[in-house]
């Protein structure tokens, strides 16, 4: 099949799932199974694209011209393909999990939930394949809007407040800063296409480069760069499947993915490296990494802690971009996949614990590991991957980032990465250690059983995925090589 057809199908299937959910609101089994089939098909489409395009770059697929020289258009390139694979591949797994979670928790409004969920996936795939900043921005906003109902899902005051913060930050930054940056870029260059080597090179100079970069970096609120990270912990009021797929994978990765795209294809790493424009961003990212980790340690609420951990981890990818070295970019790209699998595992485990025990605070989870071994084992594996320890995927991206930082001669970045790993240990592993090894006085295991199969199988799968990524790390890196202009691209 043609790449264009496959790209459209990959976006269409989630949309179809969404429509199905709205149309057959009263037939949960039909809805869920159709959605699952759509998830499989969407993933199959993306694998099909992978099969055709490989790690090359496809032709541009133009839908319509919106502004002069600005199209709504798609183009497959390795970074986007990776992101699409991650988002859509994990969708099926998360969907299974979501069924278990939503039913196990007696949540309401399933059709709306799953419909919005699917649309969000469509948006993520759209972002992944965008050929230019305009298309990307379109899907970026679609993603924000479609996830808002998911955050506000519970409908109580807390959820509404969380959703407001979510929306305010995401829409606020994107409309106020990102859009400005995009239009500015367009005014400067007359194009917004993602072009190897960047479009701004030779078009801007001096102080404008860092300012423009700043507009982008903070405008991409989804990348949760401090101080625009607040939406992420706020979004934790959402049901856990949302936190797992969207706020650990699709949404935040859309943010950092955009960040990488901007760095590589809008500015171009040569421009950034030559002008040193991204050096301040590296500091901000480093600050974000460390501070978020410290804040994470302070939080007892598991999901909140994971949210701050995500903020910190996203900083890695921004850091990779800000280093403006090939390895930095590749490390950032790798980390998209590595962190996605790790973090989704953690979130799904947090949700599984909640389904099984209704516990949300880490201090209440002491001793639970004895009765929920699968969940806690998966959590442990995910945590180790996040920390970047072998034999899990996270160690490769950390290595690449460190080499990238070394190439850039940025010791501060190396230091931030090192310190963050240690802080990661300090806030992630206590959950496992306390849960699996400490015995609690008030016998929390009483009446507790392992989470339902639908809830504990998916994290187990993703945990195995973390392991698999360790062995595929080199392959992934080779796959991404063309992004920075090396290899067979």
């Amino acid at each position, binding site marked *: 099949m043609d790449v264009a057809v496959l790209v459209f199908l990959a976006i269409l299937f989630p949309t179809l799932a969404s429509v199905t959910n709205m149309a057959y609101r009263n037939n949960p089994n039909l809805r869920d199974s159709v959605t699952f089939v759509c998830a499989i098909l969407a993933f199959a489409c993306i694998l099909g694209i992978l099969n055709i395009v490989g790690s090359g770059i496809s032709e541009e697929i133009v839908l319509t011209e919106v*502004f002069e020289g600005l199209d709504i258009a798609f183009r497959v390139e390795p970074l986007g393909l990776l992101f699409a694979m991650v988002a859509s591949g994990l969708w099926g797994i998360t969907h299974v999990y979501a069924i278990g979670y939503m039913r196990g928790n007696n949540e309401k409004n399933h059709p709306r939930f799953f419909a919005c969920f699917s649309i969000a996936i469509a948006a993520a795939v759209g972002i992944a394949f965008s050929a230019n900043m305009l298309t990307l921005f379109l899907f970026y906003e679609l993603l924000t809007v479609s996830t808002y109902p998911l955050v506000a899902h519970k409908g109580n005051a807390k959820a509404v407040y969380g959703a407001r913060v979510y929306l305010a930050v995401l829409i606020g930054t994107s409309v106020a800063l990102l*859009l*400005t940056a995009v*239009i500015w870029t367009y*005014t400067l260059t007359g194009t917004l296409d993602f072009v190897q080597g960047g479009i701004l090179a030779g078009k801007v100079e001096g102080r404008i480069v860092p300012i423009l970069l700043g507009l982008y970096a903070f405008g991409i609120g989804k990348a949760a760069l401090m101080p625009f990270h607040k939406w992420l912990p706020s979004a934790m009021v959402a049901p856990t499947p949302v936190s797992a797929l969207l706020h650990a994978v699709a949404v935040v990765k859309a943010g950092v993915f955009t960040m990488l795209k901007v760095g590589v294809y809008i500015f171009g790493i040569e421009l950034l490296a030559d002008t040193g424009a991204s050096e301040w961003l590296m500091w901000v990212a480093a600050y974000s990494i460390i501070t978020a980790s410290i804040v994470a340690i302070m939080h007892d609420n598991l999901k909140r802690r994971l949210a701050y951990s995500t903020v910190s981890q996203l900083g890695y990818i921004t850091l990779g971009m800000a280093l403006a070295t090939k390895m930095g970019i590749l490390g950032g790209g790798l980390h998209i996949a590595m962190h996605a699998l790790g973090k989704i595992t953690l979130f799904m485990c947090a949700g599984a614990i909640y389904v099984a025990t209704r516990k949300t605070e880490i201090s209440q989870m002491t001793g639970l590991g004895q009765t929920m071994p699968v969940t806690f084992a998966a959590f442990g594996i995910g945590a180790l991957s996040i920390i970047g320890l072998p034999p899990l995927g996270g160690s490769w991206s950390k290595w690449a980032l460190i080499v990238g930082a070394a190439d850039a001669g940025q010791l501060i970045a190396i230091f931030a990465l090192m310190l963050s790993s240690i802080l990661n240990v300090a806030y992630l592993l206590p959950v496992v250690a306390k849960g699996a090894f400490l015995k609690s006085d008030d016998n929390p295991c009483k009446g507790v059983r392992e989470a339902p199969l639908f809830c504990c199988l998916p994290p187990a799968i993703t945990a195995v995925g973390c392991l698999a990524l360790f062995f595929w790390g080199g392959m992934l890196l080779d796959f991404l090589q063309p992004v920075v202009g090396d290899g067979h691209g």
Partner: protein
Amino acid sequence: MAGGTEAVAHQALEMTDHLPVLQVLIPFIAAPLAVFLGVRSLAWPIACAGAIASLVCSVVLMLATLDGSFISYHLGGWAPPYGIEYRVDAANAFVLLLISATAVVVMPFTKASVDAEIPKKDHTLFYACFMLCITGLLGVVVTGDAFNVFVFLEISSLSAYVLVSQGSHRDRRALTVAYDYLLMGTIGATFFVIGIGFLYMATGTLNMADIADRIAGQGDNRTIQAAFAFILVGMGLKVAIYPLHLWLPGAYNYAPSAVTVLLAATATKAAIYVVLRFTFSVFQPEFTFDTNVLYWIIIPFALLAMFAASLIAVFQTNFKRMLAYSSIAQIGYMLLGIGFFNLSGLTATMVHLFNHSITKAALFMAVGALVLRSGSTFYDRIRGMGKSMPLTSAVVVIGGLSLIGIPGTAGFVSKWMLVQAAFELGWWWMALLIVASSLLAVIYVWRVLEVLYLGDTAEGAQHKEAPMMMAGPMWVAALACIWFGFDTSLTLEASRVAANGLLSGNAGMAPVPTTAAGGGH
């Protein structure tokens, strides 16, 4: 694409050549017809037929002028400048299309809403006024004669006063509001006519193209400057430039739903068109006073509108009123585009004219449906209706997103152009102000969405979905919002041609052979 082509100024020979006048004449005839036929049930079909016919005219006209040429129609065969000239170029063909298309789309909605809100006995009268109002708006746009503008303006205004007062069947306050509207509208019209008087004093002609020719080079003539001031302020009132907006919220709020839709989607747009026409075609952009006013009056007041009106909208608890204030704020955007005084800015104004029109049409129709089911537009009465009226609420979502300017909606396109225009001028701070004000739009839109979707349904409320007659047009408008967010070949292209025409000031009697492309670069 701009200028250059031979103007089609000729004798009317065939039916199609009469389009400019037919455009106005058809609804004009439909109005009395609706009354005098005396069959109430026929009033609506007649109005419909009239609207559709005039839409057909405007489509043909639009296609004819898209290449940058203009059509000059001499009323009664009297050649201008002595006779009345109807002149259609891309700019007003675009507005004509907008007005007539809106009229057609809202017709079914009007039926449903009028049936619900207005006693049967007044129906014929209502449709007559409705058609008259459309006539007036179309006439304002199509005519090339300054005094004729005033005449049509009054036709539309007077019928609008009547239409607004029809809201009294639902709420007696509509009468007071209509009265206020009448007073203020009349003051505006008076100012406008005074301005035209000045112009006549200075030039001895009423044909706009002729005036343009004659005042060229008279930039320091005080009379002309005064004329400009009066015309601008007079039309400013009709436009509802920020401090002159006081008639608008009341009128929108208390008028019958259908009337609100019509007024919001078309009336202010026609007025903006007039402002554009006079600022750029009649008076020359080269006049320093012209540019001075743009920079020192229009831009500050546009900004004021964008922020003050948005803030008011943020705090409103009445959906319809909120939308009214949002309209005032959005008018600020259009004025800002005018004030930028470059191609992108004017394009932004023109395209926003269109986009905002369909957006507001969709939203006000949704409000109409909500009113129909809940009887009120206050937030606490429409709480939680997202569940019971999913179709209507979805329209609110789409319209709301377009209002904010989320990509994929029509509103995004116009905002993009506006910000781009600011950047082209190097006014990055202005770009920031624009996006900042759209953040306010986020707030007021989201308040409504939260009310609709997250609120608990009011006690005892048993709502059902709006009737198809309402939902259909609503969705047409909503889908248009999305369609024109992607396909800008019509809107942006037409706007650019129109803007180019306006900026080149090619409104003189003689066809202008060549046109400078844009003034802002």
